[in-house]
């Protein structure tokens, strides 16, 4: 009886989707932004990204093998690579290697594996690493190199970011907003004399290409990114109308800083975002609102990371209260 029949319950077919397919899909979607950062930051971008990815994958492998003592390694599912790339995208291109390694350790070790690995973490690991670094190494994390210094790494010349200017405007510097590049320049990523910000957030265009790819491949749905961007646009727009000299225009808000990166790649993380479409919309609106609040009233120029982490904490609550509409519960016509 070598040829035993296999017996199991239905369904007997599968659509061939897999965790790997989704994870590598996200990685493909990150390629345009990576290319842009390589063009703008050169060596720095390459070193930072490589360090981050390699150390994230190493820590995942090491923790799985030596601490959790699991037989099967999970590094091939691609989730650690994504965490690595996203962590790199969230730091300046002149960040020293040792800081990145610490960030990767915190991201994978504390942000992910402490909770049991893929699927169990309540917070986005890359953001846990990023916020840890931001609080521990505020100087290194907020000195942004100007773009175009392709050959330099830690020695790159730094400058203010558009977000810093926007913060100054809020604090009463009337001329600050005038120094901002135009919305179009921000959109494609050329920042003139200003610094580009973190690695991955230079060009909104590249990130939007990634979004289009992920929507086309049905890796994510439109709900989270669109609700975040729309909320930021509306809320920042209202602020702008109330005092154009202090608050930057909503379009500038959309195209600067980590907003696009966060809305498209970080907030949409499967594990830490709500499960229902209604829940996703609530989550997105709250993130958008919190981001604008932090940007305009908080101590930090950028609020995306904090907003996402705060809403990650609320995800279980949202899941509990936002149930999908059950069949047959609708009004009977």
């Amino acid at each position: 009886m070598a040829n035993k029949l296999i017996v199991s319950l239905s369904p007997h077919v599968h659509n061939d989707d897999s965790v790997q397919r989704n994870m590598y899909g996200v990685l493909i979607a990150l390629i345009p932004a990576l290319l842009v950062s390589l063009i703008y930051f050169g060596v720095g971008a390459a070193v930072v990204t490589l360090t981050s990815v390699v150390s994230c994958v190493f820590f995942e492998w090491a923790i799985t093998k030596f601490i959790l003592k699991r037989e099967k390694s999970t590094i091939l599912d691609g989730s650690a690579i994504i965490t690595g790339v996203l962590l790199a995208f969230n730091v300046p291109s002149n960040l020293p290697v040792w800081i990145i390694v610490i960030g990767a350790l915190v991201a994978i070790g504390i942000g992910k594996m402490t909770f049991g690995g893929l699927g169990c973490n309540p917070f986005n690991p890359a953001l846990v690493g990023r916020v840890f670094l931001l609080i521990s190494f505020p100087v290194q994390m907020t000195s942004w190199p100007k773009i175009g210094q392709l050959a330099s790494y830690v020695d790159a010349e730094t400058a203010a970011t558009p977000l810093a200017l926007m913060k100054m405007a809020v604090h009463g510097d009337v001329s600050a907003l005038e120094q901002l590049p135009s919305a179009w320049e921000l959109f494609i990523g050329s920042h003139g004399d200003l610094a580009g910000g973190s690695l991955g957030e230079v060009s909104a265009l590249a990130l939007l290409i990634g979004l289009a790819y992920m929507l086309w491949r049905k890796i994510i749905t439109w709900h989270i990114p669109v609700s975040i961007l729309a909320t930021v646009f509306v809320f920042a727009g209202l602020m702008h109308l109330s005092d154009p000299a202090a608050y930057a225009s909503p379009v500038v808000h959309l195209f600067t800083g980590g907003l696009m990166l966060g809305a498209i790649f970080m907030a949409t993380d499967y594990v830490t975002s709500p499960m229902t479409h209604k829940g996703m919309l609530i989550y997105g609106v709250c993130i958008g609102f919190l981001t604008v609040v932090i940007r305009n009233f908080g101590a930090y120029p950028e609020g995306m990371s904090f907003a996402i982490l705060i809403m990650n904490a609320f995800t279980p609550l949202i899941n509990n209260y936002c149930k999908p509409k059950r069949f047959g519960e609708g009004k009977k016509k």
Partner: protein
Amino acid sequence: MDLILVAVISLGAIGLVSAVVLFVASKKFAVYEDPRIGKVAEVLPQANCGGCGYPGCSGFAEACVKAGSLEGKLCPVGGQPVMERVAAILGLDAVASEPKVAVVRCNGSCEHRPRMTRYDGVKLCAIANATYGGETGCTFGCLGCGDCVSACQFGAIRMNPETGLPEVDEDICTACGACVKACPRHIIELRPKGKKNRRVYVSCVNKDKGAVTRKACEVGCIGCGKCVKVCEFDAITLENNLAYIDPNKCRLCRKCEQECPQGAIIAVNFPPRKPKTEAAPTEQLATRPASGEEKQNPNE
């Protein structure tokens, strides 16, 4: 100075108010609980296994105190000694009970029962049982996914990888009955431990006709009835092509074990048989105590 004074006074006031509130609440909302419940719960094993049929040890303690009699109440984990202590606390008579043990009534190991198909679903007996008759031709026997193992809180059951069947460790088993409930095929039975832990039982639950059973398993009960005929104590009944030995009637003579053509009847913890069993059971019977609880092994 003022600051310290203000702090001391305000904190003191808060403390006072809280104390009053707590005092009032403790008097007003006090629930009277029979102190004996706590005492009984203390002597219970605190395994909270639910084997007694009540929700946890405190639930059992409460039931014992309230019932006023220990009739039909048994902590299977603690057994007779614990029940006697409970009886002492409550001033009641302990009801005698026999110690029991979980018995797996399937002997269809890999070599006895060839696998015909491969189950590819979740490794849970409950799900395999809902899927189909199982990997072998026997639709009654052990599925081998180990629901009983995970149900046992005491680690008394483990799967034998060679036979694919669960094995009960008699010394650890408390007869709480969790495995009996967990088994979707009702293979595991709680049987009296028997004198010197000796037991004779039919290790099969297959109700198919003999020919069907024989095809599926080398050691399945085929319902031939030979054991029924050979039993002198009317301990064996045959129903739906399956023999069952009533542990309360069985005198452990082991005649049925020898008679069974399939080897489906199993006797455990007996010394090895002498080359020839000469001992006439009738002689031994004369010396047997009258009490039904006592069992005698003629081959002793």
